[in-house]
């Protein structure tokens, strides 16, 4: 497939493509008007994105790109800049990526309706569209030069932010010089994207643009916001979902100078001149909560509900062949369970809010959903969207936590009671205990094998809470289905003639739900790959060979699984209680084959020794960033498999901080080798899939090392000890 393609830009000419405006420094700046009426205008009909919103070129040739997606470590400031810079033909060294302001009309992904950074969609959504935007800008510059010199545009070429006229001695005009003229031109009707061989940045591991300021303390995250008169608040929400304040005794707090108590039905805050003062004030309060019905809920009850839920018929997400008939043979049943998880990004939740006397509100913070943040503030205050201004910052980790806006709502509610701007900061304890948790799931599965060891029948019923339902305020799901919850299960890569996937919505009590890195495939891939290992054993086959035999319809996955087996030394002998486990998956548009090697001590301690992942993510933008996302995703997933478990007692989350909600540390981290294979297929997503690849390969390695199948995460080490300790 050639990447050269025509893209219509009719409609662009009705809109001023480039605008001349006065830059903050006083110089003339060629740019694109942001905000105001244009920000609210729909994108041109035949153009997936409004290119006006993305590029600004200053007189000195400096270029800034408004990046619609939020930078949270996944490298999107760099990768999206690569797409724009390559087609615009400017030097990346002259490019400054900036956070785009909130606007669904201007910045929603062509494959979505909302400005949102989640679901591994940034590259998938913007790959072609931002190349078109860059190419449009380049065409404008060429046209402006052609006009100035009185020559044909076709006789000109561009290089590094300059238009060059080879027919006239190689004379040059810089984009900066051309900017004012280009601003007055009609837009191109169509643009041609570069051929693969001409790409300079796309597909190359260029240096990240955001990292230099992250090694010297200069990078600004939401929590770093400072301004005159800023106060700091520490908050405590009801430890039981739905609970209310029964009583607040603030007599000790009142003895401390400079503090303000804010008590709001289900939320207490102490406001002070700095975090420490506010925290001491909070610690001095005696708060009594009325937890209500939810205060009776323990984890055991939720697991019992999930088991019951998994015994009921669910909504059918996929059905092929004659499942009932196929399962009449020698049937294998199994259940695999996943716990609730907190996100625990390193930057605790925080938002800075100024509710002003003129009826407007200004927000500073990090969010994966810029426009939803504005809406949350507008809803909380009962003011129009236009009265809310949001300044988005770097995120100290997202992982889905900042797809929710509960932290915005809470911060605004506190700020309403405060005179002047206030930074509301979650303690780590509050961050872990007031999360929007990854749902717990129970996968009830059945399968049968043919005489020659191929899977004949397969049913996979997923019971668990629905994040979609939670996000939409508990509305009934369409046809009872949650597409996220069954993702990875309905698109199982293995060829199985008789197959059914069901979703049995089973809402947990006393916990709020949210998206967590890896989303549905975290659960589905874990269940499928555990089941595949169990079935391989039952069929008496090697786990890799068994999978390969079922990958006839998935040549890309088959190829990388074979490669993973070779590179990891699959099949080569290992010491006692040391073994390899495999995971093959197709999720978020990318394929990953992973082999993990572990040893398990006699006491049941797991050492993850080595991980090999082969990645086919289609066309790449920045291969090193892909490798980094998979390395990190694997550890994110393995951390959950080894330690992650949010439990409830009396309706309260029992875990509090990193001492009891543990993370993998460097001394536990394995060697990880990631190989990204070249591909001309469409780009796949990569922020999430490494996360779902980790746990299955880990538990399958543990199975091979000990013979113990893990049916519930996190891994219970007592099951693995070869000698029981008295």
């Amino acid at each position: 497939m050639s990447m050269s393609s025509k893209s219509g830009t009719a409609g662009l000419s009705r809109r001023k493509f480039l605008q001349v405006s006065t830059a903050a420094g006083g110089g003339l700046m060629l740019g694109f008007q942001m905000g105001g009426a244009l920000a609210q205008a729909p994108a041109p009909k035949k153009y997936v994105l409004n290119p006006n919103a993305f590029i600004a070129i200053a007189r000195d040739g400096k270029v800034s790109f408004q990046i619609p997606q939020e930078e949270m470590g996944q490298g999107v400031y760099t990768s999206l800049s690569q797409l724009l810079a390559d087609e615009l033909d400017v030097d990346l060294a002259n490019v400054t990526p900036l956070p785009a302001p909130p606007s669904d009309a201007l910045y929603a992904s062509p494959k979505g309706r909302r400005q949102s950074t989640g679901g591994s969609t940034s590259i998938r959504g913007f790959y072609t569209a931002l190349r078109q935007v860059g190419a449009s800008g380049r065409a404008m510059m060429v046209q402006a030069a052609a006009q100035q010199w009185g020559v044909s545009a076709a006789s000109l070429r561009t290089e590094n932010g300059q238009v060059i006229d080879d027919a006239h001695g190689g004379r040059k005009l810089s984009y900066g010089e051309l900017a004012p003229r280009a601003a007055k031109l009609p837009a191109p009707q169509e643009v041609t994207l570069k051929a693969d061989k001409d790409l300079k940045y796309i597909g190359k591991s260029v240096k990240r643009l955001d990292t230099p300021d992250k090694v010297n303390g200069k990078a600004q995250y939401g929590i770093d916001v400072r301004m005159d008169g800023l106060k700091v608040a520490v908050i405590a929400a009801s430890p039981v979902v739905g609970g209310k304040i029964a009583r607040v005794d603030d007599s000790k707090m009142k003895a401390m100078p400079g503090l303000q108590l804010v008590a709001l039905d289900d939320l207490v805050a102490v406001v002070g001149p700095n975090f420490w003062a506010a925290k001491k004030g909070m610690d001095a309060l005696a708060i009594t909560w009325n937890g209500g019905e939810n205060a009776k809920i323990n984890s055991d009850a939720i697991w019992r509900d999930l088991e019951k839920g998994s015994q009921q018929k669910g909504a059918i997400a996929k059905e092929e062949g004659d499942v009932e008939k196929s399962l009449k043979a020698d049937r294998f049943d199994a259940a695999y369970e996943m716990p609730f998880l907190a996100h625990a990004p390193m930057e605790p939740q925080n938002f800075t809010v100024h509710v002003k006397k003129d009826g407007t509100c200004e927000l500073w913070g990090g969010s994966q959903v810029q426009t939803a943040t504005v809406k949350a503030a507008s809803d909380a205050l009962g003011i129009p969207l236009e009265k809310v201004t949001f300044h988005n910052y770097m995120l100290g980790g997202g992982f889905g936590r900042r797809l929710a806006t509960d932290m915005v709502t809470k911060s605004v509610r506190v700020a309403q009671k405060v005179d002047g701007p206030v930074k509301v900061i979650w303690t780590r304890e509050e961050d872990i205990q007031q999360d929007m948790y990854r749902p717990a799931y129970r996968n009830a599965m059945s399968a049968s094998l043919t005489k020659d060891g191929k899977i004949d029948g397969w049913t996979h019923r997923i019971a668990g809470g629905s994040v979609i339902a939670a996000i939409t305020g508990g509305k009934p799901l369409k046809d009872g289905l949650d597409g996220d919850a069954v993702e990875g299960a309905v698109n199982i890569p293995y060829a199985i003639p008789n197959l059914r996937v069901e979703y049995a919505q089973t809402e947990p009590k006393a916990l709020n739900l949210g998206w967590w890195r890896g989303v549905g495939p975290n659960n589905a891939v874990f269940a499928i790959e555990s089941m595949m290992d169990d079935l391989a054993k039952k069929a008496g086959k090697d786990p890799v060979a068994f999978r390969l035999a079922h990958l006839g319809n998935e040549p890309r996955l088959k190829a990388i699984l074979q490669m993973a087996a070779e590179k990891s030394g699959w099949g080569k002998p290992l010491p006692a209680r040391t073994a390899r486990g495999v995971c093959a998956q197709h999720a978020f548009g990318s394929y990953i084959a992973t082999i993990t090697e572990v040893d398990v001590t006699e006491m049941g301690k797991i050492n993850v020794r080595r991980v090999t992942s082969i990645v086919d993510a289609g066309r790449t933008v920045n291969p090193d960033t892909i490798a980094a996302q998979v390395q990190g995703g694997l550890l994110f997933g393995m951390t959950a498999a080894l330690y992650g478990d949010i439990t409830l007692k009396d309706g309260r989350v029992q875990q509090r901080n990193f001492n009891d909600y543990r993370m993998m540390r460097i001394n536990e981290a394995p060697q990880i080798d990631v190989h990204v294979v070249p591909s001309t297929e469409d780009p796949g997503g990569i922020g999430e899939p490494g996360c779902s690849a980790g746990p299955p390969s880990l538990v399958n390695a543990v199975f091979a090392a000990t013979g113990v199948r893990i049916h519930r995460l996190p891994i219970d080490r007592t099951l693995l000890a070869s000698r029981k300790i008295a």
Partner: protein
Amino acid sequence: MVTLQINGQAHTIDAPDDMPLLWALRDIVGLTGTKFGCGIAQCGACTVHVDGKAVRSCMLPVGAIGNRAITTIEAVGDTPNGAKIQKAWLDIEVVQCGYCQSGQIMSATALLNRTPNPDDSDIDAAMAGNICRCGTYVRIRQAIKNAAKSA
């Protein structure tokens, strides 16, 4: 009032003796490169140097520091090992979200200050107190080794 020696300058600040150095740096002095992660010395995001040694500033009261020299991420690049570590971090693109990396870099620099050629177990011992949620550990280990080898 407390006087602190921060990055080679004396700062006299209006803070109670029990205020952790972290919050004095962030909320009063205005040096926000040092990060809040857990508040109980479990994650290392708040790591600074006191007399060249890595300490968790979230649990170090300002009243206990006295005249000792405090170095933060904003100034560690002025030291030879700090500059080497920062360069090594960028050379192999260690950083993802970056929030924990101030602390990682401070811990890694302190490691090189006392152990110029650390082996894997030295790295484990020095860096196990710093959590990275993005999972950059593999590259952190490599970058420390690269920095140790660099001139």
